[in-house]
């Protein structure tokens, strides 16, 4: 019996590993087919294996790691700001239909305004340094979080809120003890959208506001100097960072939110 258990566990872990490998393998495969099959101009799409080799090289050399860390730190700052400011705002917004209808304009307005178009304004407000980049990414991520949390609150199950109210819980308590948890699944959807968006905005800011480090800087440099493997390698690393961040959120979610759909 323990033998069977061990082998099923092993099997399960094996299956998990295979599942995790499918995505990257598929990406490389499609890429390789596009490359080999000449579906795309060969001069502008490098071989996936060359790209991986060169990327591994620059990771070992440390230059990629440095850019990676700079971008990661910026994303971490902006997402932290966005969460701390966004979750309470979303709860308040979602809890009151009139407030929501009043402020929806602003949320939808800014969600639909490209962050890049607002760069000049943010440069103006926050200067040229990292702060402007972090601010614009935090703002974009904040909007997503507010939006998702507010939705979660609006779709919360009324019976649970009523139950807390019947016990004499005040608004603040109901927010903290019930609505916060009720909206958790939706909040995590928001968080995962937000973390990807923050990464995108940081990279775009690094590309277009200009920076001397970070993956965005690396991408645009490689683009301009026609270092194709470096460019696609940097994009790969950026995507991998996004996946990694999403995966960590997913783990937190799976560990923490056990009740969704119940």
């Amino acid at each position, binding site marked *: 019996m323990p033998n069977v258990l061990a082998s099923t566990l092993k099997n399960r872990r094996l299956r998990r590993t295979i599942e995790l490998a499918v995505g990257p393998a598929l990406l490389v495969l499609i890429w390789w087919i596009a490359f080999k099959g000449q579906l795309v101009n060969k001069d502008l799409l490098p071989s996936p294996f060359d790209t991986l080799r060169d990327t591994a090289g620059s990771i070992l050399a440390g230059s990629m790691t440095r850019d990676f860390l700079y971008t990661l730190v910026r994303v971490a700052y902006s997402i932290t700001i966005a969460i701390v400011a966004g979750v309470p705002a979303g709860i308040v917004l979602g809890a009151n239909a009139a407030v929501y209808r009043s402020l929806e304009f602003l949320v939808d307005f800014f969600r639909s305004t490209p962050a890049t178009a607002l760069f000049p304004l943010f440069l103006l407000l926050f*200067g*040229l340094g990292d702060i402007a980049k972090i601010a614009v990414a935090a703002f974009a991520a904040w909007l997503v979080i507010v939006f998702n949390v507010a939705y979660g609150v609006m779709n919360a199950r009324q019976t649970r809120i009523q139950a807390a109210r019947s016990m004499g819980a005040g608004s603040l308590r109901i927010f903290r003890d019930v609505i916060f948890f009720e909206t958790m699944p939706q909040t995590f959807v928001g968080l995962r959208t937000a973390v990807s968006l923050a990464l995108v905005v940081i990279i775009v800011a690094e590309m*277009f506001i200009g*920076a001397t480090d970070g993956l965005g*800087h690396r991408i*645009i*440099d490689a683009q*301009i100097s026609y270092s194709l493997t470096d460019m696609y390698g940097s994009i790969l690393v950026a995507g991998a960072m996004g996946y990694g961040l999403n995966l960590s959120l997913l783990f937190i979610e799976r560990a923490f939110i056990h009740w969704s759909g119940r």
Partner: protein
Amino acid sequence: TTALLSAGPAQAACDKMEKVTAVWLPIMQTTAYYVALEEKLFEKACIQIESVKLESPNQIIDALVGERADFGPPGAAAGITMLAESKFPGKLKVFGLQGGGIKVDRINDGLIVKPESTIKSFADLKGKSLGHVPGIQWRTISRHMIRSAGLDPDKDVRLQELAVAMQVPAVVGGTVDATLSLEPVGSVAVASGKAKRAMTNPVASVIADPFYSGASVMTTKFLKERPAVARKVVEAIDAATDLVNADFAKYKAAIPKYTPIKADQLALLAQPYLRGFKDLDETDLKSYQALVDIFHAEGVLPARIDVREKLLTKADLGS
């Protein structure tokens, strides 16, 4: 109306219109192309232009290398063209140069500062920040400029990459002390009255005079497959270049239609230095070579490139 009248019969005279795809940037150096379109020079030559506006120099080169387009009319990035040639040799041919010069009194770039700024030259930038067009080309040039002024680009000056659209706001808002900007940024800044040129054509004074940052480029594929059409394209651009050089004041009226420049900003617009294929001479080639050599010196180009080999020749055009 004369253009219209003459275009009618000319078109009728063509048995068949040749389709040619052009990719271009909305900048001053492309003026000759705008004029060729406005004057219907291509149509008269039985060419139907598929005109694609792009926003970054790299996209122009990508489109050419990727064989999505046949030629980049005046204004394709001169440095990046050679960079592309070093990666994909034999893909592109240069058939014209655009830029500015001190002797010829044509503006290409400038050091842009606030009106009340004390910065007069690159030497004054010690401890200050300088913005420039993002990417390796202008970082290389900027570093070279700073080094030539006796400063250390790594210590004395904070170099800041700034997208073209953000350069004037950055100077006006004080987020950078100066920018090394390409036209029309300088003209727009001066027209707004919120900034001025501390130096005009600083790059020309250091690297080569005249200085070329733009080029007319076509693909060798286009040249090989349709040499006759390619020749007609070159001729049309040359003709338009002559028109612009002869009477910029008249032909600059076409610019607002193609670029961000507003009609009310035209008065202060600087005239670019445009060289057609038939005009290119030894001075032009030397100047271009000087730029490319700096790329090599700064390690951006792995090997030295002789620009002469990359230039279109009369033989290529079969004449």
